[in-house]
């Protein structure tokens, strides 16, 4: 999922500026799962903004709505009229959701309430960890299901470097060496021979370096 976290309240208030009628829009997608921008978090933030408005002597009127997904126009359309009754929309979606809302709602300011962090997994309750950088050229079948681009601090395709020590990365004794993980997994899979093949330079044009990425599926049109 996309993992995000809420911005500091001061930053949100500063972005809202003089807006007094604000619509907070939550998202039932990834940010609900990582407890950053679901219905619950949207209501919580609304309460905080009302209290902050009072202490600052402002009359902030806050309404809330949480939609299925902010990254899909079909769910944005139904709240367009409601949004235009306000001076600003504060979106609790990821950066993709904020942008599609801004694009679709046109003449009203859409502001982000979250910082979008990474594509990750829930490691345990309350802990999310990065696993994928969406490089567009997946090599997981060659690396025992562990991503060298994400898990190695240098994104080495042929690691580990000399800084691997007792399973840890030299950057941080708490951080696992991604390549140690890969080697351990390859060994467990009986695929250590895979390590003896040089991985070619990656095609980074399939990552963000190639410009805006797009998927066009004629079969779905």
């Amino acid at each position, binding site marked *: 999922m996309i993992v995000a976290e809420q911005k500091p309240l001061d930053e949100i208030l500063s972005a809202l500026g003089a807006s007094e009628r604000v619509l907070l829009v939550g998202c039932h997608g990834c940010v609900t799962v990582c407890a950053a921008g679901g219905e619950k978090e949207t209501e919580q933030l609304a309460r905080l903004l009302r209290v902050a408005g009072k202490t600052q002597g402002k009359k902030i009127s806050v309404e809330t709505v949480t939609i299925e997904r902010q990254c899909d126009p079909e769910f944005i359309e139904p709240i367009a009229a409601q949004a235009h009754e306000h001076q600003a929309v504060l979106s609790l979606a990821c950066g993709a959701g904020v942008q599609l809302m801004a694009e679709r709602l046109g003449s009203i300011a859409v502001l982000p309430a979250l910082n979008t962090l990474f594509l990750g997994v829930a490691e345990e309750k309350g802990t999310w960890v990065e696993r994928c950088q969406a490089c567009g050229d997946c090599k997981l079948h060659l690396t025992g299901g562990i991503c060298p681009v994400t898990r190695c*601090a*240098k*994104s*080495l*395709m*042929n*690691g*580990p*470097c*000399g*800084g*691997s*020590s*007792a*399973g840890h990365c*030299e*950057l941080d004794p708490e951080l696992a*060496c991604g390549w*140690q993980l890969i*080697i*351990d997994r390859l060994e467990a899979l009986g695929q250590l021979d895979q*390590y*003896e093949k*040089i991985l*070619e*330079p990656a095609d*980074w044009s399939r990552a963000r370096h190639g410009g805006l990425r797009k998927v066009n599926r004629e079969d779905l049109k």
Partner: protein
Amino acid sequence: MKAGSNLEKVLAAGHFAVTAECGPPRGADPEQVRKKTPFLKGFIDACNVTDNQTSVVRMSSLAGSMILAENGIEPLMQMVTRDRNRIALQSDVLGASALGVRNLLCLSGDHQTFGDDPEAKNVHDIDSIQLLDLVRMMRDEGKFPSGKELKGAPKLFLGCAVNPFADPYDIRVPRLALKVAAGADFVQTQCIYNIDKFERYMADLRQRGLHEKVAVLAGVTPLKSAGMAKFMKRNVAGMDIPDEVIKRISSVGKKEQPQLGIDMCIELIERLKGVEGVRGVHVMAIEWEEKVEEIVSKAGLLPRP
């Protein structure tokens, strides 16, 4: 001859090679490089010029290499993949060869968070193994990796670095095999203090026949003090300094420790000379270049061929 460097000739003639290291200055003053040259000229076969080591900004390795060459020392230019993408790396490889550099060491480079600019982006478009392969292809096939013809192939004797003491141990020899397959002609090792573990590494390396494919230059760094040994053991990942080494350097007073460090380094070189497959030493006397002559001389390695 692949490149015709002095280092390549010394190794091809079967001599025990000696390389040293020179870090360019943190400024634009060429005198800082020149003043180190009398301590090295005539005592070594080639001198590594580091490429922003530990991610601290320094004069470029190419400029440092040229200043050494002007002063009669063959440069061994280091190149890391941290700061340049494949376009800049290829371009600098061509430029270095055009200016007469004949030895190149391909590295990934220390992570930028260790230096003064931890906010910097690390490039790592390609890694050190892929860089070896890229330069080997340009040199031997006269082609760019894109397949286009080169007008004049670069002449570079290619090296890599290995750390036999990093984890996991089991892939350390296979990892060198990858670097040799990619194009490494010689390898310089991390500094050796645990000679027993290094001898095990060399035995494993010989078992795969790698000693016949790549010239191993064993890395040594003289200890200046017991404090330095303890600091390196504690703070440098993959640095293996056995307790008995620390005990020995600590056994004399602080004033005598530098000389004992030099003597221990000479003893180590004597032992390394007897290890099958070790074709030379890489003396990394960090900010202590004035001791290189004494070490090389007392280790019986002068005069140089």
